[in-house]
């Protein structure tokens, strides 16, 4: 009864959410941004290849820039004088007297910190536009906002430590901004009224903070990726070498230099401004401190709350059928969000000691685990076809029924069954080609035995549409699907399945034309078996297995 009520309520609820004004605005913004990213990524895919596409490694590049910052920072620290009187002179020494190493280190340190902001912002925007910040990714999204703050604070402190005119400006304006908060009893900016008021103690405290924050930052970045299986925390070697060379070239062409030494009797005038970090200080010159607090504080809060704005219906999470589970661990290894773990059995099973268990808070209902399970096969008979791990709203039996109905509906000469990931190019418009279509939450949700079943029950060919290589909506689904088809991952496609009758296409949502074209070619190739449409293509965008 309760299940009936719930399902009866789901449709009106989704209707309300989707007709919501905020939801529609959000989707429009995301649509524009997604299109822009996909066009750019299409180009970078062609130039770098999906394995080195910088847009697929924005998080990994951020980690990498942090490592560069730590290494260059340690070198600079060796020569840095932590006193108010000596700080500026020590930085000038490494910049000019030791330009060939210390100067370059300083410049790389600075540009790597700028690059870190750039990759973080792009990483965040890309997640937002591609709608990859809610559900199982909420934790990473929410923990990412304080990371941004920590990077900003660390970078700003770094500028401060040079103790030149820019450092003086930043120090005074920062404390003037903090002093706006009514909890501060005495204005802290008064510490910077006169040169005599500046103490080594305060200055050294800032140095220690600048050194300690990156350690916290690294820890927080690991927490940020904690809930992800196989997170990309390192960029590929080719990309790492490329950005390092780029930073080196920039450092040689445009070395980081200091302003005049700080002197609190002289007001800083025109400053060379690092807009990656200091944009907020320009806002302080235009708006009141209160307004800047509202923008920064309110903006951060709004970004953190985005996964719940507007509230969305959550799909039911995966359920383990204990009596069918052998504890083989395949679903645990495949889950992109580490939402499945093995636990000791409590049912005294004769043969198996472990059983899979779903952590409902981490499950995003992608269905990848359904395809991981060796029990997920439509060839089994029985009154109720079930997998050991099931999606309650779309179980194995439902999928089989849907596939059988789809096969019966094929109208064209080449009987092709198309399995399409719902997060990439829409397969709805392919109806005119006469192929049977079956939409999946992720290409990784398709048990490979379904391909075998379809080919043995009337289909001439099976076409699978997945997200771009390295850019799966559910992180790893397209990778697992591809590996299962090529026999690199269990459960693999059986050897008896003729490979020329199976096609695996990978492309972005914006690449509908390419999908349609590839599908047509595949249909034609089935009529003329001697024709090879495409072998595994070099750019990894599409492949005929």
């Amino acid at each position: 009864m309760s299940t009936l009520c719930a399902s009866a309520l789901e449709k009106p609820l989704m209707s309300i959410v989707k007709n919501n004004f905020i939801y529609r605005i959000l989707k429009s913004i995301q649509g524009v941004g997604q299109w822009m990213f996909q066009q750019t990524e299409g180009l970078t895919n062609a130039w770098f290849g999906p394995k080195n596409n910088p847009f697929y490694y924005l998080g990994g590049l951020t980690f990498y820039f942090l490592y560069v910052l730590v290494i260059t920072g340690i070198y600079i620290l060796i020569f840095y004088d932590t006193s108010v009187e000596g700080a500026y002179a020590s930085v000038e020494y490494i910049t000019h007297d030791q330009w060939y190493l210390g100067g370059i280190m300083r410049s790389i340190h600075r540009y790597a910190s700028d690059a870190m902001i750039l990759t973080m912002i792009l990483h965040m925007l890309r997640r937002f536009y591609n709608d990859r910040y809610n559900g199982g990714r909420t934790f990473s999204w929410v923990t990412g906002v304080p990371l941004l703050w920590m990077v900003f604070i660390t970078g700003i402190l770094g500028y401060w430590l040079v103790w030149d005119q820019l450092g003086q400006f930043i120090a005074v304006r920062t404390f003037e901004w903090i002093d706006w908060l009514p909890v501060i009893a005495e204005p802290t900016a008064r510490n910077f009224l006169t040169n005599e008021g500046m103490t080594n103690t305060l200055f050294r405290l800032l140095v220690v903070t600048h050194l300690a924050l990156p350690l916290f930052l690294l820890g927080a970045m690991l927490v940020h990726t904690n809930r992800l299986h196989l997170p990309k925390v390192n960029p590929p070697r080719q990309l790492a070498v490329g950005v390092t060379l780029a930073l080196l070239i920039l450092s040689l062409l445009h070395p980081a230099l200091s302003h005049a030494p700080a002197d609190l009797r002289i007001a800083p005038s025109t400053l060379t401004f690092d807009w990656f970090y200091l944009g907020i200080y320009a806002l302080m010159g235009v708006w009141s401190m209160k307004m800047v607090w509202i923008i920064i504080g309110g903006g951060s809060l709004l970004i953190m709350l985005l996964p719940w704005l507007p509230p969305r219906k959550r799909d039911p999470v995966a359920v383990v059928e204990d009596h069918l589970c052998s504890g083989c661990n395949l679903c645990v290894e495949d889950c992109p969000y580490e939402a499945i773990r093995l636990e000791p059995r409590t049912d005294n099973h004769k043969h198996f000691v472990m059983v899979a268990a779903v952590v409902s808070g981490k499950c995003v209902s992608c269905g990848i685990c359904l395809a991981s399970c060796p029990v997920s096969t439509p060839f089994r008979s029985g009154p109720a076809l079930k997998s050991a791990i099931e999606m309650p709203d779309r179980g194995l039996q439902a999928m089989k029924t849907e596939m059988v109905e789809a096969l019966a509906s094929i109208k064209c000469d080449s009987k092709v069954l198309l399995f399409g990931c719902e997060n990439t190019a829409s397969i709805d418009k392919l109806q005119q080609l006469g192929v049977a279509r079956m939409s999946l939450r992720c290409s990784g949700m398709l048990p490979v035995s379904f391909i075998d079943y379809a080919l043995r029950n009337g289909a001439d060919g099976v076409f699978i549409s997945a997200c771009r290589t390295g850019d799966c909506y559910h992180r790893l689904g397209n990778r697992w699907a591809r590996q299962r088809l090529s026999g690199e991952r269990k459960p693999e496609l059986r050897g008896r399945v003729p490979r020329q009758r199976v096609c695996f296409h990978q492309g972005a949502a914006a690449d509908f034309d390419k999908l349609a074209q590839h599908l047509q070619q595949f249909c034609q190739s089935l009529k003329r078996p001697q024709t090879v449409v495409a072998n595994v293509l070099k750019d990894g965008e599409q492949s005929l297995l």
Partner: protein
Amino acid sequence: MKHYVRYLGQGFCYLLFIAFLGYFSGSPSYTHVPADKALIKFSFTHPGKRLVACVTQTRAQLQKLSPQLRYGKKCPRERSPLLVEFAMDGKVIYNAKVQPRGLSKDLPSPVYQRFIVPAGEHRFRVRMQDDIRKPGYPYFAKKKIKLKKLQTLVIDFNNVRKQFVFE
């Protein structure tokens, strides 16, 4: 795609990366104080007078209290706000009633104001009253100062000598 086109594309991306970082890490420049101006920081902290005078408690009143609360005098903590006025060249540019900080309003009242003014000679006048119940301004100072371009003038209040300081 041909190899050289891929390498050219990659080179273009790295060039864009270098150009973007190189430009926005230092441009456009930002002007905090225009070169022909000077900066005045009018800042001090000063505790106002207590709003209610201390009352000597009678023996009978003390007996009603717990032993650790038996002080001879009962002193309400709230302090008076400050009345502050700052004028330049005869024109008042800051006039405020500054409330004391603290939940019980028992901490000093802070003043921190910054003014960007044209460089050159100016006449300054500052005055302050720390007891709102009394008329007038007991703390007063005026001075004529020639400000250099980009000079920072600090106007503070010395709480020991009870007078304004121009630094």
